């Protein structure tokens, strides 16, 4: 159970896993996530499902080495090894329908959970425009997969080493300035990226879905640690989300809650002499 069937690098500190979990693979829909725990002393962490393979009964995940658990998973869990606990699918699936033109924005490892949603939107008959952003060319993945599936693809990097130099929100702004018709936007990436994208679409009143990744303990609605203010109401990302109306989300509150355990996390990494690729970034996709 929970055996690692495949593992391959997608970029620096970014790994793709296929985990054997036939019942989850059969039940999961785009937008949902799993919780995993590596060993008896481990913490439970949420990861959004990238793809399921019903034939081998596998669940595909993309893991970035940002914290103790993700670093440990990459260093100590090769193909053939099993994860101690693997539970899902969790959360509400994406609301996929025929909207018209949808813009799918993925930043960093947010590109991974975006992929099945973009695919489902395409299958549902939407025109899909994808905007993928990464720090640099090495960190960019799934470009070919998106290119094959989408009607239009824009790529940006922070340093211009691939595609245009800039941010995903710049491209979104350009599309809007050019009076492109956009019916719905999905933005998945670091909270600051989702916040800026929501700010860009707000004046145009384009529904903008974001997928949140707050700190979770159980992931099943029990602890309330993942609560987030959405339009003045307290919502639990694990059961009410993870997707919410980006125009209603209190991103500043979300980002503050994400930082709450940064000190403990750094202590843990030091203690185990683990080196995440980028300690300064908060993204944990």
């Amino acid at each position, binding site marked *: 159970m929970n055996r690692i069937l495949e593992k391959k690098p997608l970029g620096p500190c970014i790994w793709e896993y296929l985990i054997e979990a036939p019942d989850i693979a059969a039940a999961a829909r785009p937008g949902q996530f799993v919780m995993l725990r590596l060993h008896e002393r481990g913490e439970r962490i949420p990861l959004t499902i990238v793809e399921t393979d019903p034939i081998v009964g596998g669940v595909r995940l993309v893991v970035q080495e940002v914290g103790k658990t993700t670093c440990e998973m990459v260093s100590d869990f090769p193909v053939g090894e099993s994860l101690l606990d693997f539970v899902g699918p969790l959360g509400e699936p994406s609301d996929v329908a025929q909207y018209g033109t949808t813009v799918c924005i993925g930043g960093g490892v947010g590109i991974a959970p975006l992929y099945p949603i973009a695919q489902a939107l395409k299958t549902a008959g939407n025109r899909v425009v994808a905007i993928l952003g990464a720090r640099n060319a090495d960190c960019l993945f799934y470009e070919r997969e998106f290119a094959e599936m989408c009607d239009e693809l824009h790529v940006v990097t922070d340093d211009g080493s691939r595609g245009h130099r800039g941010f995903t929100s710049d491209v979104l702004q350009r599309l809007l300035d050019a009076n492109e018709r956009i019916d719905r936007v999905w933005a998945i990436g670091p909270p600051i990226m989702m916040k800026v994208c929501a700010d860009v679409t707000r004046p145009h009143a384009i529904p903008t879905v974001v997928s949140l990744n707050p700190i979770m303990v159980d992931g099943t609605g029990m602890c309330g640690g993942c*609560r987030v203010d959405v339009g003045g109401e307290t919502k639990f990302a694990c059961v009410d989300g993870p997707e919410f109306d980006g125009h209603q989300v209190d991103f500043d509150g979300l980002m503050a809650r994400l930082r709450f355990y940064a000190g403990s996390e750094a202590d843990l990494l030091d203690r185990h002499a683990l080196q995440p690729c980028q300690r300064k970034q908060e993204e944990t996709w």
Partner: protein
Amino acid sequence: MIKPRQTPISQQRPYDRIHNFDEVPLGYTEDEAVQEANRCLQCQYPTCIDGCPVNVDIPRFVGQVARGDFAGAVATIRETNSLPAVCGRVCPQEDQCQGVCAMGRKFESVAIGRLERYCADWEAQNGPCRPDIASDTGHRVAVVGSGPAGLTAASDLRRLGHAVTVFEALHVAGGVLMYGIPEFRLPKAIVSREVEALRAMGVDIQLNKVVGQVVTVDRLFEQGYDALFVGTGAGFPRFLGIPGEQLGGVYSANEFLTRTNLMRSYRFPDYDTPIRIGERVVTIGGGNVAMDAARTALRLGARESIVIYRRSVEELPARVEEVEHASEEGVFFHLLANPVRFLGDDHRLRGVECVEMKLGDRDESGRRRPVPIPGTEFTIETDTVVVAVGNEPHPLIPKTTCDLETTRRGNIVADPETGQTSKRGVFAGGDIVTGAATVIEAMGAGKRAATAIHAFLENGA
């Protein structure tokens, strides 16, 4: 000669125990147990049995203890109670068996809970009492949730010869017994032992399975289950809905206790899940969960642990023993006060503003309604607050199951005697039906449902 007072139980001293997570009462010795059991009047018409939600034959087991027949006492308890080591520790006996004990009319009641605990611990040391299991009936029953209701239903159904599968969402079985009640009140090894006993009886326990997501109730019937018991509890934390509740440093009691008990964050960094608390921890609420949180805070290193409760000491819903233990350990009770808002800067909690309350007229629960006194606002500086104001039913099963009737509050509607829901073959019990209550009441519901499920299966499902 009648001894008017209960045989005292030795306990860890308050000053010592706030520095560890070990159990507080150390249990009776054999002599103490026999001495206490001899206080029982062996009433001809005992009232204590009806005071017990699972109707343990109390006079019989206490009599057996008095004669030194501990194996017999264990067998007597186990006839109706599948979790005696748990009940002996967490039941509110003063409201149940001991509350109606005839001795209690004039003197202190017999310490039934402590005797039950003694018997269960004796069993753990001297080899388990293996219950008889009826021959296979060929029926399959699914139990959703492995808390006290689910474990009890599973045990009774298995003993009646049915094949039982328990589905648990978390990575360990036990529900609130594992994630909620702290180690110092209910050692996790005891719960694990009870779960292992269930496995040894042939109950299949499937962990990490969220029914309603990976498989629905309707799908379970398609997979060949003949009946289903829902015991998913009230695990959805309630918040106060006051400003500032999203600030870092505000925990639900569930999160605070789950991090500590289930994820063992008190052993961070040996365990990976962190918990952050400040010098002064404020817990809001007056129930057992609030006591657990306030006492846990001390053990995690808080210098001050304050409980804020909006009514007075008489209305405190927690067990008397929990309030006593908390007080002994130095938990400070700020009664007749209610939080108004959380104060913070830069998204970090800095304090909680409260208002003094007074008791007004009686409400529908019969308790006097707390009313704020205008102009009495005051602020407690703190960077850690635990909100322990109750839980709501988990919405997942009702939401994903056809034809399952719920109340306006989201509880599953079930017959109190049988647990039968609006859906054929589906029974429910415990907090998911009643709202947050006690371990033993959930066990009672699991037990009644098991009897009803058995009848349902025997009469042609």
